[in-house]
Structures are given as C-alpha cells and as structure tokens.
C-alpha cells in the first residue's frame, strides 16, 4: 500500500507521523491547506510511551482501544506502553470517506482500518532504519519484537531510537502485514480507558475547569422556535453567586460562580416568550396528519415494476400502518460546552462528534479564523448522535455566552434541558401494502414513509438529499434485502416540516424502517401460516449472509423448540451500516400486561472483526438502547410544549428490566461494516413479533403497549 502524500512532523518528543489520504467528495472542511503542527497520529517517545492520537471521539464505542490496536498491530510495540489522546480539530483528521472530521455513522473502525495500520507500519519502518544506521547493517536483517528492534543478540528499544527515527524521511511506501500474521486484530482486547473510568479520573466535558471560569445555564424557549419578548432578571441577579444575566440568540444565560447558583438564578428569571407558530404543535394531531399523508404516495424513493397494478392483481392484499414517536437521546452526560475567548483565539472544551462543523460554527460566532478555534475533546458521556449536531447549536451557544459574558464560561444543560431540547429522532409513520401470491409470498409492495428529513436545510443536503428524498429517511426500507424477492415495489416519502429540530439517533432511519419492514414481513408470514423463520428464509434465499445470521440467532435462541411456559419468541434481521444483525427475543407478558423481555439472541456479521470483546459490548448496548425505545421511549408535545422532562417520565431501561443478551460474531470476508448502531434497529420488531406470537395482538406503534 502506497501513500500519495504525507507529512512527517518533527518535535523534541520523538517520532510523529501524520499523513493525508486522498479523498473524493470532500465536504466543507474549514481549511484547504492542512496546518502541520499538531497533526500526528502516533508519537513514539524516548520514555518508551507510544501515544496514539484519535481522529474520532471516544463516546463509549471503544475506539480508544480499537484504533490503538490497528497502530500497535503494525508498529509491533509493547501494548502496555500505549497511551491514547483525542486529536485536535484539524484538517489532517478529516474522515477518510467523508472529508470532514467527525464521529458517526458507525464508520470509525472501517474508515480508519487502513490509515491507522499504515501509520503504524510507517513508524516501524523508520525505527528499523534508525536502528540499521546505528548498527551499520541493512534494515532487512532486523526484526521487531514488542517495542524493540532486534539484531542477532542485540536490541534497541523504540524509545532509544525515537529521536534518531524522527530525523529520517518517511518511507515512500509500506507493506502491511498479511492477515495470517496478525497478533492483535481479531483478538479480544480489554479497553484502554478503563483505569480512568473506574477511578473517577476520566475527564468529561462537564468536568472541565478553566481558570476564572464561570458556569452558565441558559433559559431557552419552552416552545421550539420561540423568542424572548422581554425579561426581568432582577430576582435572578439577587441570587448569591449569580454574576451576570446575558441575552443571546438562544435565550437568556445566567452566569454564576457555580452550577447551583446558576440554576437558582435561572429558576428566578421572569421571561415573556413569544412562542411563535411552534405553540400549535401537538404530537397527537401530528400523528393524525402523518397518517392522512400516508394514504397517498409521496416522492418516489425507489421502484421496480408496476406496484400499483400488481397490488390490484394480487391473490391477497394486506396492509398495515406503523408509527414511532419522537425520541430523546438522553446521554448520561448532559450537553455542555466550555469556551474561552482570548487573544484572537477561541478555545473550546466539549464532547463533540462533529469537530469539522463545530469549528466552523464557532469561528463564525467568535469572529476568528477557523484555525484559531481550538477544540479540546474530553471523553464523551454518551453520544448516540446527539453530539453531532448539524447546526452546532450547543457549541455556538457556548461561544455566544462566553462572548456576551466576557469571561470563560461552561454552559451546562440540565436533564430537563436535554429531554426538552429537541434534536430528537423524528416521529415517523409507515404504511405498507403488500400483495401476496397463493404461497403467501409478496409479489407487490407499496410502502409510504412519512416523517421529517434530518438533512434537508443543512449543509449535508446536497450530498444526501436527491430529488426530494433524504436517503436517511428511507434507509432500510427502500433498500430492504427482502424487496429483491418482490417483483413490483414502490417506496415513496413525505417529508413534512415543523419546528421540532430532528437529529441523528443511534441507527438513524433504520430505527423506524426496521420496525415497519420486519413487522410487516412477520405479518405476511403469519397470514401465510408459515413459520416466521422459514418464511424469511424463502424471501432471503439468495442472501447467504442474512440467512446465516438468521439461522445462527434462531439456533442459539432455541427456535423451533417450545419456549418456557408463558413465553414466546420473535425474530428480525436487519442490514445497516454495512453489517447484518439478526435478533431473537423471548418475551412474556405479566398480569398488568407489561411486556418483559427475558433473552435476546443476536448474531452479527460485520465482516472483518477487530475487537470481539468490543463488538459484544456494542451489540449488547445497542439492544438495550433499542429496547428502551421499543418498550418505554416517547417524547410528546402538547401546545408546543414537551410533556416529559427527566428520567421519571422519559423512562429508559433499568437493570431489573434488562434481558440476557447473547452475541454470536459471524466472521466473514465481506467488506468491514459498522458495529455501534446496527444492533439497535432489529430489537423493536423482534419484540413486537414475539408479543404477537404470544398474544396474537399485533402492536404497530412504538413504544409497544398491550391493551
């Protein structure tokens, strides 16, 4: 593998390597010429430490370990000497596929699989050459062993060679290890961030302390899109510890010496809001209007054959409508952003998934060039998409407050601010009509999708919205693997707009399309009086990866054997982010008609496996995340106001409600897929399908509730 361009950085600390891979479709990155200085991916230091710089944010998904494994695999260093840091915001760290520094879409591992291995291989090659010069031998006569270069009976440590290696020019090309020689990739590796995270030392954005820093809470409009008409801050200013009350675009900020004073101050604000048109919003009415829209086709997203005619001519026709509510991410660490404006620089400490966009937004508000916006990234206390905001709202707001207050400020969101703050997984309605043949197999499929577009009106619109269709609104529906077996199909989309800001939420469009498609497939199976597993097998006959995942999950769940008394099983398989996940849920219903999920058997094919221990954690976590939404999650609005506020009324799964989740990893030679999100989507339909098997009640609304 050869690099087209590279920069080697020299510093007193040892060997640093940075390079840039060529990329297509480069989106808006702030700076055309990469600034050189901090752009390093690995640093080998005289003290033997090997520091890996992450171009992406660690938010729980385990890349702190996975990306280090990629470098260590090629560098052949001592794993115990690895240190990891988040990289700054800089063009060198642009996403290799998207051209913009960001973390999301379950892309980190596959998008860095080559870059991080190449970095490791380059560093190793330079250390080898440094040793060869020292010993006056040919590099080929040397080998490396866990942080040492070895020549016959002599050895030099990487730390001893670091300074000499930094004076060398990098190799024009490097050979990567063949798979058979891998020592780390594919092995279960424990996380490198554990020591900090079990001792309270790990620093999250909310923990950041900057000299002279103040804490601010912002009173934002209780209605989306509302504006401040007037306000009286006299009582707020009287609260001990409150120093300033400032108005800025998103509302009124109370700036205090500590959180508690800021909160009491904010509670004491009297604000007269102009709610605007958002005050009309009512999710009950919205759902009714979406259902009305779903009766007529929308903008064409995908089609083959004449679905309308095929439906008319079908032996039997089934139709069903599914709906899902707005959902908050409810990351455990509420949003926060610390900003210091000083000497023409804007320094930011925040847990973000969106460095590239946030840097530009902050530059605009601060009135400084983007390269003068320095983003420090502590650990993210959960992301799930909430910290990749297309409008950079929480970062821009932080800069606004710091600018208005004239002091370094940490803006902290309360849990109530978080639950009521919008940027939700949008509400969706799906209407599916299927025409089936005498065996019950679908020959015609008409699927109408209704819901807000996340990308329309953003800087990503031109990449992802084509002919009026936001691909993310129909992902998993327009390209469902089941449809290849359906002769005539038509998928259309309505994208109504309203004041609620929509947002990526773990698994994005798949979070609703999988529920609709996998529920409908199950309905067809039952209508045909066929076993749901066998029926899916018939539709996916030419999809070996899907079949293998389905069969693996089903076998592990004991599909085909009688479940324990009072329980039933349901299954689903979904293909998203390049990975295929099948899940079987085993459920019961208690006397109060509450659904209890006891076991979930998962089988995942994500192509090449890097860290199986991390994959298991991501799949288990994604199932719990998806199950919270399937059983409990809903944000509702009445008269424009969000009705939920905290974990007592926006419930999420707690330990007694959590099933045993088993994970089978099906290694394959397929292109590497993602793992953070794909297991989220199948759980809702798997549970709904199990509930049907148990009760013969088909639940078509999330969260699932038996009547």
């Amino acid at each position: 593998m050869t690099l087209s361009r590279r920069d080697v950085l020299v510093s007193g600390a040892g060997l640093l390597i940075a390079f840039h891979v060529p990329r297509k479709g480069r989106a808006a990155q702030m700076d055309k010429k990469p600034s050189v200085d901090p752009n390093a991916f690995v640093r080998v230091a005289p003290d033997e430490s090997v520091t890996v710089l992450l171009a992406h944010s660690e938010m729980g998904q385990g890349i702190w370990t996975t990306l280090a494994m990629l470098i260590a695999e090629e560098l052949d260093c001592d794993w115990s000497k690895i240190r990891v840091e988040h990289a700054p915001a800089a063009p060198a760290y642009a996403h290799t596929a998207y051209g913009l520094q960001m973390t999301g879409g379950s892309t980190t591992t596959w998008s860095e699989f080559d870059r991080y291995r190449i970095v490791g291989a380059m560093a190793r090659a330079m250390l080898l050459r440094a040793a060869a010069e020292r010993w006056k031998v040919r590099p080929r006569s040397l080998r490396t062993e866990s942080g040492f270069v070895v020549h016959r009976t002599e050895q030099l440590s990487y730390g001893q060679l670091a300074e000499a290696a930094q004076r060398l020019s990098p190799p024009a090309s490097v050979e990567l290890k063949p798979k058979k020689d891998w020592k780390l990739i594919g092995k279960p590796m424990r996380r490198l961030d554990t020591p900090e995270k079990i001792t309270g030392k790990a620093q999250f954005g909310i923990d950041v302390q900057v000299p002279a820093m103040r804490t601010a809470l912002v009173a934002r409009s209780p209605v989306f899109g509302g504006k401040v008409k007037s306000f009286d801050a006299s009582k707020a200013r009287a609260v001990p510890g409150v120093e300033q009350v400032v108005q800025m675009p998103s509302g009124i900020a109370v700036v205090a010496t500590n959180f508690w004073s800021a909160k009491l101050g904010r509670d004491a604000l009297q604000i007269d809001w102009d709610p605007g048109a958002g005050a009309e919003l009512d999710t009950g009415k919205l759902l009714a209007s979406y259902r009305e829209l779903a009766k007529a086709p929308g903008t064409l997203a995908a089609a083959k054959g004449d679905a309308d005619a095929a439906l008319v001519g079908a032996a039997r026709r089934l139709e069903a409508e599914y709906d899902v509510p707005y959902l908050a991410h409810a990351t455990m660490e509420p949003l926060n952003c610390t900003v210091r404006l000083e000497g023409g620089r804007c320094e930011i400490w925040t847990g973000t998934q969106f460095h590239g966009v946030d840097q530009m937004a902050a530059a605009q508000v601060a009135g400084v060039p983007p390269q003068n916006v320095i983003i420090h990234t502590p650990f993210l206390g959960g992301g799930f998409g909430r910290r990749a905001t297309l409008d950079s709202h929480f970062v821009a707001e932080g800069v606004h407050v710091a600018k208005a207050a004239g002091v370094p400020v940490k803006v902290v969101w309360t849990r109530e601010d978080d639950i009521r703050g919008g940027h939700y997984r949008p509400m969706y309605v799906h209407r599916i009509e299927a025409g089936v043949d005498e065996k019950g197999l679908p020959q015609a499929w008409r699927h109408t999708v209704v819901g807000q577009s996340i990308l329309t009106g953003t800087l990503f619109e031109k990449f992802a919205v084509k002919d009026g269709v936001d691909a993310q609104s129909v992902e998993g529906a327009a390209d469902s693997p089941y449809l290849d077996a359906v002769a005539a199909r038509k998928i259309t989309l309505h994208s109504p707009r309203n004041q609620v800001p929509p947002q990526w939420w773990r698994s994005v469009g798949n979070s609703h399309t999988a529920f609709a498609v996998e529920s409908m497939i199950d309905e067809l199976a039952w209508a045909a009086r066929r076993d749901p597993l066998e029926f899916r097998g018939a539709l996916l006959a030419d999809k070996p990866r899907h079949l293998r995942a389905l069969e693996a999950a089903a076998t592990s769940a004991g599909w085909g054997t009688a479940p324990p008394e009072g329980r039933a099983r349901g299954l689903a398989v979904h293909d998203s982010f390049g990975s295929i996940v099948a899940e079987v849920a085993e459920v019961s219903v208690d006397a109060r008609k509450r659904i209890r999920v006891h076991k979930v058997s998962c089988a995942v094919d994500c192509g090449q496996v890097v860290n199986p221990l991390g994959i298991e954690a991501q799949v288990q976590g994604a199932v719990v995340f998806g199950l919270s939404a399937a059983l409990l999650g809903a944000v509702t609005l009445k008269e424009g106001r969000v009705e939920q506020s905290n974990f007592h009324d926006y419930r999420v799964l707690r330990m007694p409600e959590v099933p045993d989740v088993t994970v089978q990893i099906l290694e394959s030679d397929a292109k590497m897929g993602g793992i953070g999100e794909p297991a989220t989507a199948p759980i809702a339909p798997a549970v709904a399908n199990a509930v049907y098997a148990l009760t013969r009640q088909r639940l078509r609304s999330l969260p699932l509730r038996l009547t």
Partner: protein
Amino acid sequence: MKLELNGQTREVDAPDEMPLLWALRDLCGVTGVKYGCGMAQCGACTVHLDGKAVRSCVLPVASAAGKKITTIEGLSPDGSHPVQVAWAETDVVQCGYCQSGQIMSAAALLAEKPDPSDEEIDRAMAGNICRCGTYQRVRDAIRRASSMRRARR
C-alpha cells in the same frame, strides 16, 4: 461548614441547601461524582455517606456535615477495590459517565451483602441508569467481585 471527604477534612463555604453533589464538584473540585438528573433518578451522583449509598444530587450539603463522605476517588487509593478490579476484568465500561455511580452502588451492596442474589443485585442497582447498556457486564462484575471477596476470606 466542614466536610469529612475521602478521609480528609474540607472546609466549604456553601449554602446549607446546596446539594452535596455541587458542593463536591464545584466547591471541592471532586468531579468523579457525576450529575445526571438532579432528582435521584439516575444514580450517577452516588456517593457513600457513612458507608451507605446515597444520591448526592438531592442531599443538602448541610446534612452530610459530620458524616464520612466517600466518592469514587476515595473508594481505593489506586483502583484496587475488588469492585474496581472486577470492573476492569469484566471490561464493563463504555462511555464511563455513569460508572462512578454504578461502582459506588455496587461497593455499598457488597459491603452489606457479600454474596448477593441476582434479585438483590437487580434491586440494589435499579437506581443506576446506563444509557450505553453496560448492565449485563455490571451484573457479571458484581458477581465476580463477590466471588473474589469470598476467595480472599
């Protein structure tokens, strides 16, 4: 007022009704204890008060005065408490934000019940939310810590 925090006496200038959480975080600079909800719903703020797990986000600082306050920073000097060791061996953490609270709840449980049943684990941990969904490994780690303590006796 004076706080007995992790074996040291700390003088803090706080209004009586300020929640202990904010006195610890903003006035003492002890940030391992986390804010998650402010209403004792999520457990991220769990600390020990005279050895018992409490939610510091709803506990007025004045009521903690004179009692032994232990945060995650004070659980062990070097991460060697059996619960922390079990956590590391089980590879529990993901984002890590709730983990201080989870560990403090688990440590309090095991101090009281060295060999808890699955139901007792569920009950003791029901007040600690994890959005990453580490629950299963949390459960496994508690069982592991419990058996480590048994082996040590």
